[in-house]
């Protein structure tokens, strides 16, 4: 009995620890500023709930411009990732493991390289190529973060599709193009959707490449950073809150697709 009480105390402390910063964000966003940033010891309770902070911050172009930039970049990252990861995942699932795994490891190793190291030479090259400060350039760089995981998921997805299905289509006279689009891709749809959504979320949250390659009219994370460091605090808080909502919605949607088999499929063969 005594140990159970200890367990619950532990669980409650852990719960508070992980929830507290979110609670602070909500207080900052919905409490009147005179109880939050203007006070020496801000109130720990929601004293004067108001939507005014959000309304003021979200008006005009200060929010909508970076929001659209983020939206464009994230969608483009999703598309580029799919365009590269779907064929690569299919190819990797159809060659012997001893050749496929070194290639997968090569892809995963790129995730260990610091964005700040890779981003600086890329910035220099992008200026020469005219890709600096463009959505396409930023999306091309951010795909580095998303491609390894997406390829891994797609390889698992295609490995889980029985090759008998593909042979039958082949016997029926379907060439690679038809096999891909009428047999394989419909069956792999959940994996493709999951890869797209994960890529979209990674790009949405990404900061390092964004600030290196698009420092002036940037995406939301960079805008939040600039607002907060220049003292435009309420805008930074409001943007942070609105910025988080799509991630929560998508995470919820993703749970449907990420049941584990797409990630594990490739390891079983």
């Amino acid at each position: 009995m005594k140990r159970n009480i200890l367990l619950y105390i532990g669980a409650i402390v852990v719960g508070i620890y992980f929830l507290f910063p979110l609670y602070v964000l909500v207080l900052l966003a919905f409490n009147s500023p005179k109880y939050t940033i203007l006070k020496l010891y801000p109130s720990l309770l929601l004293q004067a709930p108001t939507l005014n902070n959000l309304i003021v911050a979200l008006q005009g172009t200060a929010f909508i411009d970076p929001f659209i930039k983020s939206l464009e970049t994230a969608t483009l990252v999703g598309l580029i990732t799919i365009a590269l990861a779907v064929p690569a995942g299919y190819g990797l699932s159809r060659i012997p493991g001893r050749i496929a795994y070194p290639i997968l490891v090569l892809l995963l190793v790129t995730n260990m390289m610091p964005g700040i190291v890779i981003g600086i030479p890329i910035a220099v090259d992008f200026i020469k190529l005219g890709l600096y400060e463009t959505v396409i350039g930023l999306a091309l760089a951010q795909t580095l973060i998303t491609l390894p995981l997406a390829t891994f998921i797609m390889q698992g997805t295609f490995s889980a599709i029985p090759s008998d299905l593909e042979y039958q289509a082949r016997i029926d006279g379907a060439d690679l193009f038809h096999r891909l689009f009428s047999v394989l891709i419909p069956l792999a749809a959940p994996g493709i959707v999951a890869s797209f959504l994960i890529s979209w979320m990674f790009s949405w949250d990404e900061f390092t490449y964004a600030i290196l390659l698009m420092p002036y009219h940037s995406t939301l994370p960079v805008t939040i950073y600039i607002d907060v460091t220049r003292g435009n605090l309420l805008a930074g808080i409001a943007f942070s809150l609105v910025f988080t909502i799509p991630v929560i919605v998508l995470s919820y949607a993703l749970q449907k697709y990420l049941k584990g088999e797409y990630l594990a499929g490739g390891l079983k063969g």
Partner: protein
Amino acid sequence: MKLNTSFFLILPAVIYVLAFAFYPTAEAIYLSFKDPHGGFTLFYYKELFSTFDATGAIINTVIVTIGALALQFIIGLIVALILTREFFGRRTLLTIVLIPMGIATVVAAVTFKFIFETSGGYANSILHSLFGISVNWYQNSLMSLLTVIISDSWKNTPIITLILLSGMMSIPEELYHAAAIDGAGPVRRFFYITLPNLRKFIGISLILRGVQEFNIFALPLILIGYHPPLLTTLIYNLYQTTFPEVGLALAGATVLIAFILVFVGIILILSGR
């Protein structure tokens, strides 16, 4: 023929990675040794260590890496131990524990900036109402680094918890039963069964988080700016102030790569693989 088609399909992804990850890395290292006239030089490194106190930045980076890893590890282990028990509300707690994974680093950093603010900060608000004291969280370098360590641990404990939890789930129940019959208490069971069997999982999470810890950038930039500098914020500061002359920043970048390689090597040796 079939094998050829497969390679043809993999090729775009491989070319992309070579062009956007390996080529820039090689370029960064090469350019850091190249003077404007094309010859070999160590000028950027001398400048980096004499004028810009790269040594200090390296020490700060190591402090943050070790501090954050230790804190994440201790909290992650405790949380995983709680979550291996069956109790009412376990699923709710698991959901709460995973929340930080869904919060962008920038948002976490902004929130912690308001928590550790000296005037108008929530940490001080709690300390003041409980003990009547307030702390200047940025009074010296070490305290500033501590705020980075705490914030980073909040954001990244969930992934460690998940890895350790899956490791604990894989330990056979019989081991614990046998140890209990032999008279081992919970503490000894933890040190003689749980920890040794977790070795591999601890190695994985240390590599995964350790490398990211060296690369930690958005969080310190937002929380403490350039003072005290970490390797990444120093590199960014140099990049910003000297752009498009990037030699100095790239010398810093090369130092960072070297540190990551050494770190991965040490962990690989320690975890015995």
